[in-house]
């Protein structure tokens, strides 16, 4: 089949109508949303959206007199309602694929947030890889209105901060929206979300002055983990319990453990965990219900604050024992809080039972949280210290009297 020139006329005519520009969006016409905050006031959702201010963040022509971000806020009966209402205040249509952070206010979290978030799972513009955090003691918009230095886009700042602290310190949890959806629906695990907090007076953080100080008056700081019953916030873990939670969940990639020195109780040793692996196991649940956590970690000596002899295997063994005790204490405290304080299985033991004992699980699935409370959980930690850093014994050992 050959096309002659005359044949091309209708083809070209069709091409005019069929160009793929129906919903093209030029970069100048969209406001890139990087963070979103959700709050609830009088049965209406208050949505705060943080947009990037492109002219002030571009590297070459960056106009540093303008704030790098700008937030808009609108109320609506649903999130989508509020987002569309935003067009009344925001100069551009907001664009969500680059969303980094979702901040839920503590108030909404206590009332239950699940009913508000379907849009984020349904609308193709949202990806499910942004992080979810709860604004502890604050409104969501206060968190989003803070100007932060170094990483100028506040959402990016929050994103990388959460990622780093979860990677190398581990009391926080980098939880993506996709993971949250899983936790909300899985019968074997109650969700937990990391909290974020402001230090200082919220309104001060909105000023450009906050950017110009070496020591900004207002900062954003991640706190520990919040425990949920399905979608309702029940309480906050402390740092010890939060870390224990992450050990049990096998979320710990690297963290430090600080233990008192055995030669000088006032001083401390820091051990850096470089690798950690956790296994959750169940015993035949029908006859003799019991679950166990076993943690295996590799560690290095990071900091020595007293005079000890690191060249002796005996010392190393002692330190290993101390670290094991410390980690075990964190794990025990997380288990205790789960079983006694909140009576909720936010540790995900239910999922383990589901996998290993499907028949038993079927029976207890409905009341798993009640069942969970009474099941003894054993824990075992094995620490192996490999390296001492670039020193053998510390110079502290040789200090002049």
């Amino acid at each position, binding site marked *: *089949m050959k096309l002659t020139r005359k044949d091309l006329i209708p083809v070209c005519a*069709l091409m005019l*109508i*069929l160009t*793929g520009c*129906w*919903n093209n969006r030029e970069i100048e016409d969209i406001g890139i949303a990087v963070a979103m905050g959700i709050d609830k006031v009088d049965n209406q959702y208050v949505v705060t959206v943080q947009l990037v201010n492109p002219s002030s963040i571009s590297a070459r022509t960056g106009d540093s007199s303008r704030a790098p971000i700008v937030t808009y806020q609108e109320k609506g009966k649903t999130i989508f309602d509020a987002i569309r209402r935003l067009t009344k205040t925001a100069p551009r249509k907001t664009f969500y*694929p680059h969303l980094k952070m979702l901040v839920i206010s503590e108030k909404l979290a206590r009332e239950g947030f699940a009913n508000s978030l379907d849009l984020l799972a349904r609308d*193709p*513009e949202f*990806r*499910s*890889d942004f992080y979810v955090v709860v604004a502890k003691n604050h409104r969501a918009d206060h968190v989003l209105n803070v100007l932060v230095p170094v990483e100028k886009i506040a959402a990016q700042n929050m994103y990388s901060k959460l990622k780093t602290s979860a990677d190398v310190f581990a009391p926080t949890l980098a939880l993506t929206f*996709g993971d949250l*959806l*899983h936790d909300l*629906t*899985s019968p074997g695990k109650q969700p937990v979300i990391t909290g974020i907090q402001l230090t200082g007076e919220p309104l001060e953080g909105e000023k450009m002055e906050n950017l110009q100080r070496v020591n900004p008056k207002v900062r954003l700081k991640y706190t520990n983990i919040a425990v949920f019953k399905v979608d309702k916030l029940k309480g906050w873990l402390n740092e010890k319990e939060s870390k224990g939670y992450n050990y049990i969940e096998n979320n710990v990639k690297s963290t430090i453990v600080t233990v008192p020195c055995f030669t000088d109780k006032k001083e401390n040793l820091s051990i850096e965990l470089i690798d950690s692996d956790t296994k959750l196991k169940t015993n035949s649940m029908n006859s003799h219900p019991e679950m166990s956590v076993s943690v295996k970690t590799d560690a290095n000596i990071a900091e020595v604050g007293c005079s000890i002899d690191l060249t002796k295997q005996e010392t190393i063994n002692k330190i290993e024992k101390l670290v094991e005790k410390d980690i075990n204490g964190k794990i025990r405290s997380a288990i205790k809080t789960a079983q006694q304080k909140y009576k909720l299985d936010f540790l995900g033991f239910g*999922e383990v039972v*589901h*996998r*290993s*004992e*499907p028949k038993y*699980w*079927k029976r207890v699935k409905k009341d798993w949280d009640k069942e969970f409370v009474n099941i003894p959980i054993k824990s075992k930690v094995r620490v192996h210290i490999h390296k001492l850093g670039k020193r053998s014994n510390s110079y502290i050992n040789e200090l002049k009297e």
Partner: protein
Amino acid sequence: MLENGKISVRQFTVLVALYTVGTAILIIPSILAAKAMQDIWIAGLIGLGSGLGLVFFYWKISERFQFMNLVEILEKCFGKWIGKAVAFSYFTFYIFILSTFVLRDIGDFMLTVMMVETPIEAIHIIFLAVVLYGVKLGLEAFTRTTELFLPWIVILFVVLFITLLPQIEFTNILPIMENGIQPVLRSSLSFIVFPFLELVVFLMIIPYVNEPKKTKKAFLLGTALGGGLLILIATLSILVIGVTETARSIYPTYDLSKTINIREFFQRVEAFMALIWFITVFVKLVVLTYALCLGMASVFNVQDYKLLTLPIGLLLYIVSLVIFPSSTYLIEFTPIYDFYAVLWMLMPVFIWLVSLVRGKPV
């Protein structure tokens, strides 16, 4: 002879494999996960096993009738007029409906996740234009195109697989057979219907392979490759995004490619990954439309099937626009469709029985 072109056995294998992957790659994980849950791979393997049996059966029919095309087989079997009537209804009510499904699937996909505000008509016209052009150029041309596409699919698939490796959670497939075997079997039925049952259109293509006798191995191999790829993708979605999300998502494979993220650097590549299914859907639709045109031409004794391409394309276009009034209708219709397709499966069985009763045909 309606078709003068000849394709090689190797090309036939590629065609079968990509046809099997077809639209199934987009939606099969969610269909399988709905009932079989984490046992998706068992359902997949059972489905693939039965699918291979089915393909073998199709090939046997073809062989028994000296590799005639489906319309000729029907005419031979039931006599000229009844055969034509049966062939006509088969092509209109099964192959045609199936083709509109395939076209609509790609349109819906584009509309749902990529170009939300674009009219579906535009996507259908563009996609169909390419397909009809392929059909007009003939079997040899589009088969060679398919062969050219193959390396791309392989590369993209390998990239998809490797980049997802770090995110795999093997515990996601436990426990095995939680609810017994029944839901697994129900899922594998869906898997047999879609896509293996649909391989029946290759009865229209086997006659134009240069050595039809050697197609048995090629047919089985192509099906196994395509089916294996589907099982791999379905299992991967379970391992990476989990059972509930796979079952609840409409296009799990797309969600899967969305999760690719290597060090915040290699990410947001889903549009590239979408190339995989643009190509496989193209292959599926081009084979279906080709079979449709050829079949209709045989039924009406038209000398050149290419004459019918555009009018049939026009019908495809319109019916694909009205076939599903809404997404919910599609979800509700899926179980009915399983049953409907199995009913049409009775036809090859019937052919087989008739040919047995009549003794050695031809």
